[in-house]
């Protein structure tokens, strides 16, 4: 199946084209069309992954796309372990979201449009992870951005959705400029877009250390935009205006992980620059704790999950920055499953109670959402890092890496973040599912099977998915990831019991605190919110980051644009109008002489004659 791995992105593309042409007549049936093609895609991806496990090396496939002069630009695909793993994650989550959305979006007028966008997104994301060169990656990188824009703005009649879509697109574009600049710089120095040749150039010391640092930081800037890292994080929570299946697929499991994937895929470049690694680690650590603290006080179920996503992506960056290639990719893998499941469960809750405000929920487990409740609990346990759920192993791996890379500061921040994560996730769980039902609205219906089964599949993976890489049963995933073609894979963490126990204690403390505040002493949280109203307000308003951008960047740019508009209108346009005015004026002057007075013409001729004669006479015959 490795030879046919190009079929993985091809199937969603075909689905996209079919729905594009026949969507209007297919309507709801386009959902099953999408599911069918996704299933085919997933089967190929799974087969390719299984086959890739037993193969030492797979040659990349390239064909010529453009050639000018002696430069040949190729397109193709490559199946490194990282790519194979990403293909599996993306196609699986996409398949499950396709199925889930059949229930969640049922009855929507534009369901075929939704599935069309979803198929296009899946195609772009799969193409992105298969790309063997930066140019092709950049094309798909922008395509997923467009799909994200389209899907966030799916409910375009809501002004918030429209604003959020615009914000997401513009903020990720700000990041993408960095990638574009880095691609140009690398092509200038290396003369190729291929990952393999760039890594070879790095290894042969062909590039100066300063140059490597600059390009690595530019690439990281793109990852910051796509993965919602500080300071470009604020689009991701707003992106929750999109339909919930989209949040699960794009803004939790796949597209936002593309930034992490980018850093991982270009890891040899980052590994060659200690400064770039420092920046990645510190930005990741800061984002992790920054977003986690905001998540503590938000009241929208999807926004809490969104800040949790930002925080967890920060965790992955932190791991990569601490040279923990395996830890970062491992967390990306486990996070994709449990966060997608949490979002789908949140979608199921919203589907049932028709609100996103957790203050209006409560007691939903007893009220009837039993399956969703249990699944949500599994997700919360996983993200909080409780064994044997997947999140425990990946979080432990990150903590080990951070400590053993000699970054105690980053390690402490990660530990604190783990505590806050457990606290806000269980705050969410207890406020939504815990306690007595609020009642009043009648019995609450559990979601249909088409929605629960995808969640159950993800839950199973959340439970068992972590065992591919543990320090007791074998670091199978890590060993396999390191068989890839890149020359360096950073640090290899070894087990340390005290870190493991510490992380577990911290998580349990977070859960215990959440239980104490929200179950044993209801009302305590509100009391604290009034006692510490200052910090509470700061957190509730997300550290006023959006407001700060509004005052500094937006206002500043508006001011600049007013100035530039003035220059354009009065100076540039003025010059253009002057250029137009001069011939007109000359023409009018000439036209005024054509007044039809034949005697005036005669006088003109006579004066002309006199002038010529005078010129000849006075110059003594010099002027002929």
């Amino acid at each position, binding site marked *: 199946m490795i030879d046919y791995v190009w079929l993985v992105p091809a199937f969603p593309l075909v689905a996209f084209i079919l729905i594009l042409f026949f969507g209007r007549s297919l309507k709801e049936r386009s959902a099953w069309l999408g599911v069918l093609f996704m299933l085919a895609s997933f089967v190929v991806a799974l087969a390719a992954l299984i086959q890739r496990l037993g193969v030492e090396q797979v040659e990349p496939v390239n064909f010529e796309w453009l050639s000018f002069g002696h430069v040949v630009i190729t397109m193709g695909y490559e199946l490194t372990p990282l790519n194979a793993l990403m293909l599996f994650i993306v196609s699986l989550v996409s398949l499950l979201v396709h199925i889930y959305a059949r229930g969640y979006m049922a009855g929507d007028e534009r369901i075929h449009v939704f599935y069309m966008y979803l198929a296009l997104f899946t195609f772009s994301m799969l193409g992105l992870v298969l790309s063997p060169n930066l140019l092709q990656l950049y094309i798909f990188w922008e395509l997923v951005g467009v799909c994200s824009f389209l899907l966030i703005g799916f409910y375009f009649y809501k002004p918030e959705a429209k604003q959020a879509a615009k914000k997401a697109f513009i903020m990720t574009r700000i990041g993408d400029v960095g990638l574009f600049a880095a691609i140009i710089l690398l092509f200038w120095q290396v003369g190729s877009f291929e990952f393999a040749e760039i890594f070879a150039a790095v290894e042969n010391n062909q590039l100066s250390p300063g140059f490597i640092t600059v390009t690595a930081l530019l690439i990281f800037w793109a990852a910051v935009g796509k993965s919602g890292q500080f300071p470009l994080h604020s689009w991701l929570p707003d992106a929750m205006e999109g339909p919930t299946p989209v949040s699960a697929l794009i803004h939790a499991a796949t597209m936002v992980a593309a930034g992490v994937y980018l850093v991982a895929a270009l890891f040899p470049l980052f590994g060659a620059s200690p400064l770039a690694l420092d920046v990645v680690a510190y930005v990741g650590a800061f984002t992790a704790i920054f977003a986690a603290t905001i998540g503590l006080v938000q009241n929208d179920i999807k926004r809490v999950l969104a800040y949790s996503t930002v925080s967890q992506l920060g965790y992955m960056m932190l791991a990569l920055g601490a040279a923990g290639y395996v830890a970062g990719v491992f967390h990306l893998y486990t996070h994709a499953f449990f966060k997608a499941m949490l979002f789908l469960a949140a979608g199921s809750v919203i589907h049932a109670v028709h609100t996103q405000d957790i203050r209006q929920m409560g007691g939903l487990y007893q009220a009837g959402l039993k399956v969703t409740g249990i699944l949500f609990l599994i997700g919360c346990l996983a993200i909080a890092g409780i064994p044997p759920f997947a999140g425990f192993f990946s979080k432990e791996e990150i903590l080990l890496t951070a400590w053993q890379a000699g970054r105690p500061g980053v390690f402490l921040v990660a530990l604190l973040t783990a505590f806050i994560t457990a606290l806000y996730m269980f705050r969410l769980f207890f406020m939504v599912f815990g306690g007595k039902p609020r009642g009043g609205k009648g019995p609450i219906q559990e979601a249909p099977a088409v929605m629960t089964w995808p969640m159950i599949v993800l839950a199973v993976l959340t439970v068992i998915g972590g065992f591919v890489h543990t320090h007791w049963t074998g670091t199978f995933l890590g060993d396999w990831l390191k068989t890839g073609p890149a020359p360096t894979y950073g640090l290899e963490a070894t087990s340390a019991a005290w870190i493991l126990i510490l992380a577990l204690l911290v998580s349990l403390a977070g859960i215990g605190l959440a239980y104490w505040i929200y179950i044993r002493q209801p009302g305590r949280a509100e009391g604290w919110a009034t006692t510490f109203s200052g910090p509470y307000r700061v957190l509730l308003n997300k550290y006023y980051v959006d407001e700060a951008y509004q005052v500094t960047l937006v206002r500043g740019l508006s001011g600049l644009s007013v100035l530039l508009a003035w220059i354009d209108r009065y100076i540039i346009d003025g010059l253009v109008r002057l250029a137009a005015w001069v011939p007109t004026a000359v023409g009018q002057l000439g*036209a*005024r002489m*054509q*007044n*039809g*007075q*034949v*005697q005036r013409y*005669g*006088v003109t001729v*006579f004066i002309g004659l006199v002038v010529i004669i005078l010129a000849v006479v006075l110059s003594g015959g010099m002027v002929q």
Partner: protein
Amino acid sequence: MIPVSWYLGLAALLFCLGLYGALTKRNTVIVLICIELMLNATNINLVAFSKLGLYPDIAGQVFTVFSITVAAAEVAVGIAILLAFYRNRRTVNIDEANVLKR
């Protein structure tokens, strides 16, 4: 014998009179007459040079006859245009003949 400069002086005088009249008079008939004056000034010059020039030749006089013939034809055409103009505009003032202006 009258020196050639007298002929030339007379011709110049006639020419200037004609030019002045052609450029200043409003009546088209007068303008046509003035043009005739200018033509005749050149005829005088031609005749004078054919008799008293540096290389006297009969060609000057031949040209004069030729010029008079052409002038007669020209006046005929001019008066025809003038009549057509008069029929259309009920005027012979040359400054009103300005329909071709911008």
